[in-house]
């Protein structure tokens, strides 16, 4: 039968149960795969369940032995077997081979293999390793050469300095070659000197800068005076009608000169701020030592040069061109020449009794132009009645000697002052103790050209005018200052100053301005162009009871220096009224120069020549 047979152990289910639907899902899960594999996670330090478990079930594995022809393994195999890579290459090779002979093609194919042919029957490779020499390191360190750092800049002036140094060396070599044989001994002596110099104290090298610093410091200290000197102009002069004033500037004094009087003053022509002061004494009873000082306006506290002398200095003169030569006349009748360039407290030359020194105080010395042999010479006048010319003669030995040349036979009276004409070389004036003035010439040594009866007492100073060739001035202790025309025997102007006049001086900038100092401590400044009868300035510049002895105008600046009997030198600035130049007329150009000055003076003189009488004070 084909009837359904029920097995006996078949489950009996009800109809409802039979119709129940049972869902069966087909998944790809592997029923044998574990579901909860747990692995230890070192990161979280705990066991963690793996999220996905591999569901792959492998039923059968068979490994094959086929290689893809492009893979690495396949290529390696081909290279091993020597089979060409591409079919295309193969074709090309065979073409080549066909073009050549057979043995060659064999070689070519052989060459391509590039494999070492080894005899498989009788080949054995033998390798051995040799001993490697042990390596040893050997080091040696030398002492490094001494190093110094050098740095320099290449500036324009460094290059210049190098060239100058080079040039000097070359010149030295040349000199040495010239004086080699004859001066060997001298060189040795010089070498010794040089050694000594190097060993001398370092402080001496600072001398020059110390001087500069001193001047700077002094300038600061006396700043207001320096400013006044340069820039101050007294404005009140405009209101003062025609009078002027003197502004005191620096005062020069030296400790060692306190008991001495200023006996001579002289400005240096070349360095217009340098002046010389001679110190001595006019008193017969108070004779002692003297001094010669040089001051510069740049340093009022200390002299630039100091010379001490045995006898009082009575007069001095600085050479116009060679401003380092100073001629000095002394109370004991000597004359001396100092050379400022030489170091040493002694004069370069000094006259002695043998060389004809004066027997009485020398009152005035004046340098002259060099004579025909280019020797320097100067004149001196003294109370012993002689006017003497001294010449510096260079003798073979190299030293200087004064030679004597008497110009005037001794005249009876004693000379007290001397001045040479500014333009006419041979003409000079001598003032005497009796009050006479003699006009003399160098060419006539025995006679005077003219004699003027000038004063009642000794003539203290005679001065030619700087501009006008005929005018000169004289002063005396008889309280008067007189102005002369040397062609006229009587004075053109006379001024009474109420006190003994120590000195007069013409101004270097105007023919009509002059100044005088008196023993009552006053300075009188006159300008004949403005006022013919009176001084336009009378001012006491020193303390009472101090006598003023000398006065000098500065050649460049508007200042004067006055010396007194206490050894002080005071500098004063002239106010504008005292330095007046004639006013310009509108539309006309003012002619400048000495001719104007001469013309001014001439005009004054001509006014006086017409009337017979001389204007009295």
């Amino acid at each position, binding site marked *: 039968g084909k009837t359904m047979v029920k097995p006996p152990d078949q489950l009996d289910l009800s109809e409802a149960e039979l119709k129940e639907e049972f869902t069966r899902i087909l998944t790809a899960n592997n029923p044998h795969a574990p579901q909860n594999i747990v692995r230890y996670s070192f990161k979280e330090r705990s066991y963690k369940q793996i999220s996905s478990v591999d569901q792959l079930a492998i039923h059968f594995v068979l490994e094959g032995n086929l290689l893809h022809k492009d893979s690495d393994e396949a290529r390696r195999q081909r290279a091993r077997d020597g089979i060409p890579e591409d079919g295309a290459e193969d074709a090309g090779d065979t073409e080549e081979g066909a073009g050549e002979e057979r043995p060659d093609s064999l070689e070519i194919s052989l060459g391509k293999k590039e494999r070492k042919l080894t005899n498989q029957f009788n080949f054995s490779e033998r390798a051995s390793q040799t001993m490697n020499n042990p390596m040893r390191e050997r080091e040696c360190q030398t002492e490094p050469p001494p190093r110094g750092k050098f740095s320099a*800049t290449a*500036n*324009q*002036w460094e*290059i*210049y*300095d190098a060239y100058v140094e080079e040039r000097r060396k070359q010149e030295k070599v040349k000199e040495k070659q010239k004086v080699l044989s004859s001066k060997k001994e001298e060189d040795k002596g010089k070498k010794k000197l040089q050694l000594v110099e190097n060993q*001398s*104290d*370092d*402080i*001496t*090298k*600072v*001398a*020059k*800068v*110390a*001087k*500069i*610093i*001193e001047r*700077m*410091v*002094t300038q*600061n*200290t006396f*700043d207001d005076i320096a400013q006044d000197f340069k820039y101050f102009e007294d404005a009140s002069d405009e209101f003062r009608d025609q009078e002027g004033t003197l502004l005191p500037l620096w005062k020069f004094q030296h400790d060692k000169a306190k008991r001495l009087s200023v006996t001579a003053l002289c400005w240096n022509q070349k360095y217009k701020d340098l002046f010389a002061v001679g110190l001595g004494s006019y008193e017969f009873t108070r004779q002692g030592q003297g001094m010669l000082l040089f001051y510069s306006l740049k340093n009022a*506290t*200390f002299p*630039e*040069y100091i010379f001490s002398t045995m006898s009082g200095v009575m007069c001095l003169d600085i050479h116009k061109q060679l401003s380092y030569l100073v001629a000095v006349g002394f109370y004991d009748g000597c004359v001396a020449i100092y050379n400022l360039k030489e*170091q040493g407290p002694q004069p370069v030359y000094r006259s002695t009794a043998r060389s004809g020194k004066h027997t009485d105080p020398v009152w005035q010395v004046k340098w002259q132009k060099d004579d025909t042999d280019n020797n320097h010479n100067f004149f001196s006048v003294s109370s012993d009645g002689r006017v003497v010319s001294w010449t510096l003669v260079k003798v073979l030995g190299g030293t200087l000697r004064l030679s004597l040349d008497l110009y005037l036979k001794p005249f009876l009276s004693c000379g007290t002052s001397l001045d040479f004409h500014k333009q006419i070389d041979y003409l000079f004036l001598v003032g005497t103790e009796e009050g006479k003035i003699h006009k003399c010439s160098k060419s006539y040594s025995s006679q005077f050209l003219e004699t003027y009866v000038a004063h009642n007492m000794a003539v203290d100073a005679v001065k030619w005018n700087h501009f006008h060739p005929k005018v000169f001035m004289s002063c005396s202790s008889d309280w008067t200052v007189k102005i002369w025309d040397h062609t006229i025997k009587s004075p053109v102007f006379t001024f009474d100053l109420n006190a003994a006049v120590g000195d007069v001086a013409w101004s270097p900038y105007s023919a009509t301005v002059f100044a005088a100092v008196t023993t009552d401590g006053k300075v009188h400044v006159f300008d004949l162009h403005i006022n013919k009868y009176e001084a336009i300035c009378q001012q006491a510049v020193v303390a009472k009871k101090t006598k003023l002895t000398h006065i000098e105008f500065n050649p460049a600046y508007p200042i004067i220096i006055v010396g007194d009997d206490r050894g002080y030198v005071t500098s004063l600035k002239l106010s504008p009224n005292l330095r007046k130049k004639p006013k310009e007329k509108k539309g006309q150009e003012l002619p400048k120069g000495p001719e104007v000055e001469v013309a001014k003076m001439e005009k004054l003189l001509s006014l006086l020549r017409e009337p017979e009488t001389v204007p009295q004070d």
Partner: protein
Amino acid sequence: MFCVKAEVEETLKRIQSQKGVQAIIIVNAEGIPVKTTLDNSSTVQYAGLIHQLVMKARSTVRDIDPQNDLTFLRVRSKKNEIMIAPDKDYFLIVIQNPTE
């Protein structure tokens, strides 16, 4: 001018005795103070600083004209004035207060 030691010493003494001078320093070419009237630390400071200034100033002057050279240098400040005079081997510094 006598370059004798005594003369130079005297000059320096006179400078020191001037109104308002506070100090004098002598410095050699390498910038080392040789002689001073000021205390050590200030001296060294002044010497070092001023040395450079002087070199610069001198270089400036000579660069413009190599035949020219620096004569002196003044540095004026509110409180005082520093004056420097250079030489080939040395330079001298003076500090002054002129309004004292």
